């Protein structure tokens, strides 16, 4: 009631700092938001389309990496074995790794004999490798898909919605933001908190990701078990910038030679189980 009285007494009625046309909401904020969502979705689908195809490897290369990983697994999961089996396996793996039985190198040399005469240097020109060129290209494509829509929308916002402020931010800003957020507004002394359409654009850019996730639908884990053999990570030896597979194998063989102190999980397992469940 008191409120109404105050409102009705016209003496105290005063004009706030700035009055905004409520139609701004309808004709500026909404179109920008809708446009942002649509382009965002378009971009995501575009990225999906230009994403690189799964690239395979020659089988020998995979065999090589798998044998390397087998050595690693022996080190990592060796506790699952009793001492004797671990010892015999350790010696076997040391032999295999240090002799390089499963190295894919030989085939590589054969195929490269004609073209590559740099020989032992081991470092090849990264741009001569088609695989690397491929990955560079996909990287470039991804970047393009990111910044082209951004530039276009920014231009669109500035062109159609420039020259006026549309809202007041609930927090103060320093004067340096004036150039950016009040672009095209010719008032020198206006509080920086009043911002033009472009700042709504920025807010949208930063805050849109959860919305996209909602629209695209996150994958719910409904299945009791998914991907049971998930232990096989696609780790390929000797990628660009990595040491040669041969050295890696030699190092692993050395590690295995040192790993003489084996701790089996079967030690004291009886008392452990009894303690756990009794």
């Amino acid at each position: 009631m008191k409120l109404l009285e105050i409102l009705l007494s016209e003496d105290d009625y005063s004009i706030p700092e700035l009055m905004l046309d409520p139609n701004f909401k309808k004709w500026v904020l909404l179109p920008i938001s809708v446009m942002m969502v649509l382009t965002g979705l378009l971009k995501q689908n575009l990225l999906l389309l230009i994403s690189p195809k799964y690239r395979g490897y020659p089988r020998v290369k995979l065999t090589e990496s798998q044998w390397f990983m087998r050595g690693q697994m022996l080190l990592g999961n060796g506790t699952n074995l009793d001492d004797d089996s671990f010892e015999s396996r350790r010696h076997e793996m040391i032999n295999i790794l240090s002799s390089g039985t499963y190295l894919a190198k030989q085939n590589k040399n054969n195929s490269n004999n004609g073209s590559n005469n740099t020989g032992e240097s081991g470092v090849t020109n990264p741009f001569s490798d088609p695989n690397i060129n491929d990955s560079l290209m996909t990287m470039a494509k991804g970047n393009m898909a990111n910044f082209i829509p951004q530039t276009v929308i920014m231009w669109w916002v500035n062109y159609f919605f420039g020259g006026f402020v549309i809202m007041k931010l609930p927090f103060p800003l320093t004067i340096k933001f004036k150039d950016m957020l009040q672009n095209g507004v010719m008032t020198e002394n206006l509080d920086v908190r009043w911002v033009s359409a472009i700042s709504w654009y920025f807010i949208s850019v930063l805050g849109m990701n959860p919305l996209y996730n909602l629209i695209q639908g996150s994958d719910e884990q409904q299945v009791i078990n998914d991907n049971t053999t998930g232990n096989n990570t696609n780790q390929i030896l000797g990628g660009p910038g990595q040491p040669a597979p041969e050295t890696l194998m030699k190092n692993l063989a050395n590690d295995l030679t040192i790993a003489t102190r084996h701790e089996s999980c079967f030690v004291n397992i009886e008392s452990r189980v009894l303690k756990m469940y009794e």
Partner: protein
Amino acid sequence: MSLTAVRQRLLTINNTRTYVEFDPRETVQLYNETKRYLKHGDTQLTPEQRLSLMEMLFYLSIFCSEDVEAQVIYNQISDTLGEESCKLQVMKATLLQFNGSIEEAIKYLDDLIRQEYEYDTDMASYTVLSKKLLTLKLYYGKDYNNNDVNNDINNNTENKQTKKYWDTWIKEINILIEKSPLDPELWWFLAKIYELNRHFDYAIHCLQEVVLIMPFNYIAFAKLAEMYVYYSMSTKINHKDKVEVLKSALNNALRSVELSETFLKGWTLIKLICERLKDEDKTRLIKLANKKLKEIGNESNDYDRFISGYILSK
């Protein structure tokens, strides 16, 4: 009402490939149920899950000799996915095997592996195709197939020809293992073959490889324990060694229940091995096993209830 539970069950069966272990009654029932479920429709089924269920239905219809339907399902899947993936290629080979001839299927897979997958593959595809090729060659292939040989893996007939037959299997699988040593299924199958031929020590070696690759596979630990028990019975080893082997068996069984509390097979094996280890005092363990078996009998599904009841009553 409980469509969620149904979906979950079917997807779980598909993911774990349990349907290959079903007996005829269960297979036919599952086949009808999957068909009905897919026809009925489920809004919460994602397209990927739907495709995977269709793959299951494909194999189920192959099992039930519904080749026409299998062809239809294959066409549906390949319309959405194309024919590049190794799973589809295996399906195609399966269709060729029954609609065309086995030689055709073998040739198809052989060409694929030699001309394509040898040079451009990923971790799974090469081995999956090779496995299919191997089954085609060894179960039905001309070179190996003698009509009087019993190819049944669950039947251990002990004539020389069978032994030769299994030796080819072992040789072929070893070649494949050398190419991809991290495929647990290959190791497991090799263990199965050795078990069949009663080389339990070799089987133990293979299963240990599985345990290295999948460190928390409690099923494999229980299987290891089982193998150790067989091994302890199989050789003319003296009493002392026998006890040692049984102890290893017990260790592995204990490890399996350490990883999974309500694992029926693990507790059964513990009870059984403890009863065999007469010289040592294992009353606490036997008591614990009995307690756990009783718990499983009270809570678990009907099969496990039945089995735990049977074991406790023995």
